[in-house]
């Protein structure tokens, strides 16, 4: 079966090819800038040691840890411990698992997504997690990727599949780091997440790779009755970053929270494409993405909300707010709501502006220096995204990293 999916993915990718900026969905994200002439799909040699991981332990040490170097699982650096009932490990060793076989390639559809097709077609590695019914996993799962590749022709393919059964609960951190500033290449990630009835999945993605590396990722969820999916995406580093997040609310009474933060400078570009698909009645979704953009950096936000015919009593909220710190910084934001049901509450809003000059003067009039005042206001601006990270340790670490970047 998986062989067939792969074969189809090869055909699809051959048909689609890499997208150009003429494609409306890739208008601001020029993949030509980051595609190597002759892509290498095998990983660069391993050189990561345990001590290199210290700065990467952003969710603390009390986690189930899965470490990948250039997309290759490093069992020697990982520690998942024995977790009763929970199936967790690299997909390379779990391919025969029935739940894996039943779900792989079934959540995400690659028909119009070249990078998902490519990811599916080539050799990839990642994590498979199967949380059995009623299991509440107390410890955070930390999927930690370190880029140690200094050859720019590498495309690393990462594939995760998470299945949370009825009334299960799990919290996952997916983080990206670099061994040094020279590490580069393109990372292509696909996450498939199934949240069964009354289950709860939390996912925090922290993009802290080097500013020479790029990432394109696609997360697709399917939620069943009464389930909850909460996600926070924090992009601080990376050259070109494309985050595709597609949420499918496939049954009644589902809840989804989508939060995003991007703090960009230099020539960084971050493109967040989200889709919340309300397919059934009585679901709730709330989305807040915020950006602080300086230098010659640019941000893109494209947020779609579909409310299908059957999805009565939908509550869907979306907001995108940006601060531009320089004249050369740009932001392109596009909310798209398509509503086919008549009894719904949907709101959306987008703002892009400068720092509030009145607030700045108020702080300065109290003796706070201009630079500190600007930093204080920017930190306040990003706080209501970061405050949604539930793990204290992770939230504080990302707050510190965000503050450090805002102080530059």
């Amino acid at each position, binding site marked *: 079966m998986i062989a067939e999916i792969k074969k189809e993915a090869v055909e699809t990718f051959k048909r689609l090819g890499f997208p150009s900026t003429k494609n409306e969905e890739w208008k601001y994200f020029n993949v030509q800038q980051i595609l190597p002439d002759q892509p290498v799909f095998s990983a660069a040699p391993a050189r990561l040691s345990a001590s290199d991981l210290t700065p990467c332990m952003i969710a603390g040490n009390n986690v189930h840890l899965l470490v990948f170097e250039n997309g290759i699982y490093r069992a020697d650096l990982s520690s998942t411990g024995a977790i009763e009932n929970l199936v967790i490990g690299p997909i390379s060793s779990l391919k025969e698992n029935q739940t894996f076989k039943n779900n792989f390639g079934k959540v995400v559809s690659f028909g119009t997504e070249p990078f998902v097709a490519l990811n599916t077609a080539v050799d990839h590695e990642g994590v498979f997690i199967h949380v059995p019914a009623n299991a509440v996993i107390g410890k955070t799962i930390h999927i930690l990727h370190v880029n140690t590749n200094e050859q720019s022709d590498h495309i690393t393919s990462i594939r995760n599949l998470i299945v949370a059964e009825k009334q299960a609960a799990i919290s996952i951190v997916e983080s990206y780091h670099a061994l040094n500033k020279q590490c580069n290449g393109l990372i292509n990630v696909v996450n498939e997440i199934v949240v069964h009835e009354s289950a709860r999945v939390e996912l925090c993605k922290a993009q802290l790779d080097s500013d020479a590396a790029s990432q394109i990722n696609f997360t697709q969820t399917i939620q069943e009755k009464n389930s909850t999916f909460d996600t926070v995406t924090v992009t601080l580093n990376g050259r070109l970053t494309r985050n595709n997040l597609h949420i499918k609310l496939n049954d009644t009474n589902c809840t989804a929270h989508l939060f995003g933060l991007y703090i960009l400078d230099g020539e960084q570009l971050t493109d967040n494409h989200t889709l919340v698909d309300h397919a059934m009645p009585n679901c709730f979704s709330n989305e807040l993405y915020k950006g602080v953009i300086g230098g010659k950096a640019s941000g893109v936000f494209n947020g779609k909300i579909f409310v299908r015919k059957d999805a009565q009593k939908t509550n869907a909220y979306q907001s995108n707010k940006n601060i531009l710190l320089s004249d050369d910084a740009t932001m392109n934001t596009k909310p798209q709501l398509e509503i086919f049901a008549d009894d719904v509450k949907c709101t959306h809003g987008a703002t892009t502006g400068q720092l*509030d000059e*009145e*607030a700045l*003067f*108020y*702080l*300065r*009039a*109290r*003796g*706070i*220096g*201009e630079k*500190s*005042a600007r930093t*204080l*206001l920017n*930190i*306040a*601006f990003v*706080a*209501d995204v970061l405050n949604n990270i539930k793990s204290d340790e992770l939230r504080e670490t990302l707050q510190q990293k965000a503050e450090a970047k805002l102080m530059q």
Partner: protein
Amino acid sequence: MLTIKNLHARVEEKQILNGLNLDVKPGEVHAIMGPNGSGKSTLASVLAGREEYEVLDGTVTFNGVDLLELSPEDRARAGIFLAFQYPVEIPGVSNANFLKTAVNEVRKSKGLEPYDSKDFLAVMKEKMKLVEMDKQMTTRSVNEGFSGGEKKRNEIFQMAMLEPQLAIMDETDSGLDIDALRIVSNGVNALRDGKRSFIVITHYQRLLDYIVPDFVHVLYKGRIVKSGTKELALELEEKGYDWIKEEVEA
């Protein structure tokens, strides 16, 4: 302490101050009154260092220093405090964190050690009593969702924390009911220590029943056209500004 000579200033091409002179000595309370558009708030803005106000002529010296050369933050550190007519809401910055940053920056500029959290809390607790501040007002974001009265109390609370030498109060009484006016005035009076000076800008004599000034000045067309003692305020309350306008135009 503060000497303003022949001050001319404009905002957005409109000249508002036209040769204003004022001398404030330590411990004095000066009330500045005047009809709408006479330049009262412009004076406050120029003294606090708002960048959109351009000084065309004249000098302002504060304890011998050319005030107009200083940035807003350096003016605050030098001991000038502006109580805003419209205090700004700053979501996401807690009142306590904001004040701690401000107080410690001011202390640093004076060569004093910054307060640690424990000392700061103790000072804050004491000053909160001055304006009958709720503890939860300090954990909330600066002015966010505060009522008009709470915002003005917060201004006086900040004044108490920053211990300025000269406080400029820009229509602090606007939008206050009698109770809030009493609380705010009590706070100000508690901070009158014989050394600290105040410039109280107001439309209404009512405030001056609570904060009793040493001098009352009438600002008209960007200049001080009449000065007197607190009785002048009463006279203005009774007769309005027309007789002063007539005197000036005559």
